[in-house]
Structure formats: structure tokens, C-alpha cells
């Protein structure tokens, strides 16, 4: 089951559907963070995540009157963001670039700062598709079948990408990295 998003009161959703700009802002305030986090983790790029955040909420506001309310609005918005992220993942530009290591947001760090920083950096160095799969599976709670459908691939593809991501994360976290896997990724062969 997908990771639940912060609840948004139905009254705010109703106002948003009727075009209330203040309600739109309230929805952004509640879900902008989760959407940006999702995009940043899946894409490992602050600039791309900003683009996804912006494009997602433009689409949400322009189409919110079509939101029927039979699902949580957070789930609906995250689905839009995930599709936009996957579009970026599928694009050749993302596949060709190297890992974009953004400076971690220090204001959020406390306690296990080192571990979290290490995990964030390791995640950013996982190949694009595998990183998207591990985030969708381990954090957002999607099943392999759902991930396969989202990516237009098979369930087995999702499983193999998840195993690959876990293996890569272990290597990076244990300091046993033997080679730069990114250099092995060839967009033409869709290996990343």
C-alpha cells in the first residue's frame, strides 16, 4: 500500500475544486514537502525535483475539478509527481548525466546525521531506474506489480531493479564499492 500522505481536510479539497486559490495554497503547504522529497529522492537532483514539484502542482490546480475524491488527494498528487519523475528517468538526458550530488539539507539533520547523510549520498549514486524502484517500493509502498505497470515494464523487472539497488546501496554504505556503476550505464541499452 502506498505511503500515506499528510491528510488534507475534505473542506479544503472542496474549496480547491471550486477554484479557491487559498485552498490551493493550503494543499501545497501540506503536500509540497512530500512531493518535493519524493522527486528529490527519485531523481537525485534538486533542480529536476523543483521542476517536478512545480509541474505537478500546476497540473493539480488546473485539473483539481476532475479529482473525484474517491482516493486520498495526497495519493492522487503523488501519482502525478511519480509519473513526472518517471518521465525524467526515462529521458535520455537523465540517463546520460552522472549523479548530481546536491548538498544535503542540513537544517533537517539531527541525531543520526552521519548515517542519514551517508544513506542520502548512497541513494543518489544508485542508477536512476533502480533508485526510482527502491524508493517507490521501500518508501512509497508500491508493489512490484504496480511499479512494473508504472514503468511500462514487468514485475520481474521491478524485482531485479530493487535487488540491484539494494546491492548497490550495500556496497556504498559498507565502503566496498569496487567500480563506478554509473560509468557502466548506457542509455541506448537501457541498463540504468
Amino acid at each position, binding site marked *: 500500500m502506498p505511503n500515506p500522505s499528510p491528510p488534507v481536510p475534505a473542506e479544503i479539497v472542496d474549496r480547491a475544486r471550486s477554484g479557491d486559490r487559498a485552498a490551493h495554497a493550503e494543499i501545497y503547504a501540506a503536500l509540497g514537502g512530500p512531493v518535493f522529497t519524493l522527486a528529490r529522492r527519485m531523481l537525485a537532483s534538486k533542480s529536476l525535483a*523543483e521542476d517536478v514539484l512545480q509541474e505537478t502542482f500546476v497540473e493539480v490546480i488546473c485539473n483539481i475539478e476532475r479529482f473525484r475524491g474517491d482516493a486520498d488527494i495526497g495519493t492522487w498528487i503523488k501519482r502525478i509527481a511519480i509519473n513526472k519523475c518517471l518521465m525524467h528517468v526515462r529521458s535520455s538526458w537523465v540517463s546520460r548525466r552522472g549523479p548530481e550530488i546536491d548538498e544535503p539539507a542540513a537544517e533537517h539533520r539531527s541525531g543520526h546525521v552521519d548515517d542519514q547523510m551517508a544513506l542520502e549520498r548512497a541513494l543518489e549514486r544508485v542508477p536512476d531506474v533502480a533508485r526510482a524502484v527502491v524508493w517507490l517500493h521501500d518508501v512509497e509502498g508500491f508493489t512490484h506489480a504496480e511499479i512494473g505497470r508504472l514503468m511500462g515494464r514487468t514485475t520481474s523487472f521491478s524485482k531485479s531493479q530493487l535487488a540491484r539497488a539494494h546491492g548497490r546501496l*550495500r556496497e556504498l554504505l559498507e565502503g566496498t564499492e569496487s567500480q563506478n556503476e554509473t560509468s557502466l550505464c548506457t542509455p541506448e541499452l537501457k541498463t540504468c
Partner: protein
Amino acid sequence: MHARAQDLLKLRELPELAPPPGVWERVLEGVGARAVARRLRRRVALAASVVVAMAAVPLAYVLTRPAAPPTVTLIRLAPDRVPWDETSYAPLMVESARLERVLAEMPAPPPLVVGTTSGTIVGLEDRIAYVDAQLSYAAARHLAPRYRRALWGERVELMNALVQVRFAQTQGF
């Protein structure tokens, strides 16, 4: 498993990131731009539909215009009006001229016509032209009035048929 590898299970615990400043303002700009684009598309679509409608009205008029009712009342079969006279063909000439006027006053044929109708009209016009040639020959050779009356009678029948077909054509048949 190495202790740090246990962090694999802690992806969910990674902190939520705050949206960068300025994104909401860009969202609003994007929404505004889409609204403008949507209005523009609607106006273009409206303008296009108006143009299409303006073009369609004359076309629809041509294709569906009703025939003038008076035309129907003007059409009379020649034998009903022409007194039978074996030697005089003057009434037939008058009737033929009247039918010529009726034909001339009929609206122009639509741009798209049924092929069989068009063929019938051409056939009738050819036959009328042939009768006219025979009438010219009869006049030149001073043939007997009875023979001329027969030709004028045939011409009136052909003209009647032509008027009927042309009338049907204006009705969209």
C-alpha cells in the same frame, strides 16, 4: 550484514525536505500561463468554428434550399393546355417558349448533383437539340405543317420532361 547496511531499512526515516522558496510563485505563474493558453485555444477554436459555420451556411443553403413553390404551379404538361389541331403548331411553339422561360427562371443547379440526374438532363438536352435541328431543316425545306407540328409536339414533351427533371434536381434528388 554491516551495521551501515541496516540503514537500507531506514529509507523511510530520511527527513522530509522542504520545498525550495519561490516554487509556489512559479506554480501560480504556470497556472496563469495555462489559463491564458486555454482561453487562447478556446478563442481560436471559436473563431475556427465561426469560419466553418460561415462557410457551411451557403453550402447548406445550396444543398438544402427548397424549390420555389410557384415553380411547381407553373409546370403544366403541354397536352393539357394545347388544343389538338393537326395543322396548327403555333400553340406548341407558345408552350415551348413558356417552358424555356420556366427553365431559365429555375435556380442554378447545385454544385454537387446526382450522376443519374445529370445524365438524364444531358440526354434530354441532346434530344431537344436534335429536334431543333429537325425543325430548322423542316423550315428550310418548307415541310408540311403536320410534320412540323409533330416536331413541336415532341419538343414540348421533351421540354416538359426537362423542366420536371430540373425541378427534381433543385429538390436534391
